């Protein structure tokens, strides 16, 4: 028997965990205590709620937005009509980079990869008639999070929603933008300060809102292994906690507002272990390192959906199948919210048809496949519990390494984290190109004649022009003196190292633009310079 086991080829996950051919009751050794616990109880390995999907199924929140606010509003209504229970807003690149649509760098990019937002008027139009108490909104915004969150809050308040009751999420994780995704604006330190401003503002005025969604997702998409994704993600989460504590906030006042966004692609079991280990580790960090007493502070809440990085440009219909498995992994891992990549995402902004297939994929799991029947169906599996332990050890080891090199903030500011991720990406790509890692349609079962029959999302110059007209009209019609006065209050707040959020709220209510707010802040804080390091 032993000889036969030795003959079979080894299995090693991307995170560097070797897998035994058989697991049994003796496999799980060295785990600290039991470490599993009941669902809804510390350390939340089995999920953060006692009844999970039996009580409340996951939220379905496809990433969407393109063109003008009016076009995006239509897509929102379409998704809601088809049973989507939350919104996840995509902004165009100028908005994300803190530029107005009439900035020269915005040319050709207006509304291309998301909705164009210049002023509060765009925010008002995008969410018109949508019940913000019933449909929670997630804003995928980072570098420009301060003006965009302020616009969202101002819009909600104008519509008569109480800020003290408003729920929702902003991505607002600037540290990961320096590693992957790249929509940074300000240098590292003031960027963290601005995240702190939003955390403090929400803790005081919008307490049910989650101002930060820490993203392992984009770090993984940039090439990190699943263990690195979780380790860097949790380290970044800790950096925001450290900052907020430094401002004198109490951990239990803001930690419940930190949620997470993780990626799913690659080996099914490895992702499951990653999520269960990450949940346990975060709970321990919050309780033991930070003394958090509120269970909500200790709970790792997450959006986890399929990552575009797992999709292929070859044989695109295969991506529908991949997406279904990613959704399955997400449900088996106890996610709170799912956003699934659409099959055409390797090429383009998802078409209406592709977005609907993603939504239906999640609905089939929920309504036909029994994924909501019971809590953590994989819990107690010798294999799953043992690999969860191994994954936790890996994540801890990477987090310690980051700490020993000066911490995550310094590692990112100096480009060391980026270089580590880049090396991992290169190794993976090399192995893929050499055929050492199998990918169906790419290096296995390749079609000789590839015909790419995928409908491309059109870029419409007319929409871009409409946005420019709208911006010009607002600039002409708004109360110019009030804009100048409120922007100079923003400048003063930034200069005094005060929380800029109240002043930015006033400015956006006066219809100051995203670009105007960001450029005032850049005057004080400066602009990030990328450390290029290989």
């Amino acid at each position: 028997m032993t000889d036969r086991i030795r003959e079979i080829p080894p299995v090693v996950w991307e995170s560097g965990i070797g897998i035994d051919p058989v697991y049994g009751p003796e496999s799980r050794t060295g785990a600290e205590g039991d470490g599993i616990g009941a669902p809804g109880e510390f350390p939340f390995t089995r999920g953060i709620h006692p009844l999970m999907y039996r009580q409340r199924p996951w939220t379905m929140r496809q990433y969407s937005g393109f063109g003008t606010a009016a076009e995006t509003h239509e897509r929102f209504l379409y998704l809601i009509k088809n049973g989507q229970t939350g919104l996840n807003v995509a902004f165009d690149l100028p908005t994300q980079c803190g530029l107005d649509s009439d900035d020269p760098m915005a040319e050709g990019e207006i509304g291309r990869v998301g909705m164009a937002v210049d002023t509060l008027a765009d925010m008002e139009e995008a969410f018109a008639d949508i019940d913000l108490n019933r449909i929670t909104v997630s804003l995928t915004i980072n570098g420009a999070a301060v003006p965009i969150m302020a616009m969202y809050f101002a819009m909600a308040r104008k519509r008569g929603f109480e800020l003290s009751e408003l729920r929702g999420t902003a991505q607002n994780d600037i540290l990961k933008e320096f590693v992957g995704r790249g929509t940074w604006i300000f240098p590292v330190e003031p960027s963290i300060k601005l995240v702190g401003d939003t955390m403090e503002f929400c803790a005081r005025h919008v307490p049910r809102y989650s101002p930060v969604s820490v993203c392992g997702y984009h770090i993984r998409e940039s090439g990190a292994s699943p263990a690195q994704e979780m380790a860097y993600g949790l380290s970044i989460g800790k950096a925001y906690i450290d900052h907020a504590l430094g401002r004198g906030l109490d951990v239990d006042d803001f930690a419940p507002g930190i949620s997470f966004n993780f990626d799913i692609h690659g080996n099914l079991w490895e992702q499951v272990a990653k999520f269960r280990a990450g949940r346990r580790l975060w709970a321990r960090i919050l309780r033991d390192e930070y003394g958090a007493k509120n269970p909500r502070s200790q709970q790792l809440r997450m959006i986890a959906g399929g990552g575009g990085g797992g999709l292929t440009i070859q044989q695109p219909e295969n991506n529908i199948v991949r997406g279904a498995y990613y959704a399955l992994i997400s449900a088996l891992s106890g996610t709170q919210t799912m956003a699934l990549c659409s099959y055409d995402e390797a090429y383009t902004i998802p078409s209406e048809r592709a977005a609907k297939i993603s939504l239906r994929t999640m609905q089939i799991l929920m309504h036909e496949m029994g994924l909501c029947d019971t809590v953590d169906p994989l819990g107690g599996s010798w294999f799953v519990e043992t690999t969860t332990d191994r994954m936790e050890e890996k994540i801890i080891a990477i987090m310690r390494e980051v700490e020993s090199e000066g911490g995550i903030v310094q590692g990112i500011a100096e480009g060391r984290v980026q270089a580590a991720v880049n090396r991992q990406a290169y190794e993976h790509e090399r192995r893929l190109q050499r055929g050492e890692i199998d990918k169906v349609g790419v290096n296995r079962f390749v079609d000789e004649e590839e015909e790419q029959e995928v409908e491309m999302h059109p870029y419409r110059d007319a929409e871009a022009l409409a946005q420019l007209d709208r911006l010009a009209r607002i600039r002409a019609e708004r109360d110019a003196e009030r804009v100048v006065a409120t922007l100079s209050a923003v400048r003063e707040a930034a200069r005094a190292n005060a929380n800029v959020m109240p002043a930015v709220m006033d400015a956006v209510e006066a219809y100051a633009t995203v670009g105007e707010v960001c450029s005032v802040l850049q005057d004080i804080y400066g602009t990030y310079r990328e450390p290029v390091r290989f």
Partner: protein
Amino acid sequence: MTGRTGKRIRVLIAKPGLDGHDVGAKLVCRALMEAGMEVIYTGLRQSPEAIANAALEEGVDVVGLSVLSGAHMPLTRKVKERLEEAGLGGVPLIVGGNIPRQDARALQELGVAAVFPTATPFEKVVRFIEEQAGQ
């Protein structure tokens, strides 16, 4: 590998526009370096003017653009114009990223020497640059 000037082949890899996807660009940088070339990587968010200036100052043999936002047509057109204004019309310009087949043809009509869409093997890019620059 040496270029026209008898020195090592020098390649500028640039990210024009606002697109933040830099995985592919950095992978190509590393592959070219491993193939013995000198690579200058601009980092994100470069204007067409900045890219043409970098190409001029660095005296590169090839300029590579990476675009995954879908804005490859207008951005490439502008970079090509700036390169020509800088007297670098003869420097081969290559484009990589999320480029649909029909746009690859249109880019070549603009004077792009080659288009390498996502998932192109490194060897193909290396070989092409060696052929273009290594006389």
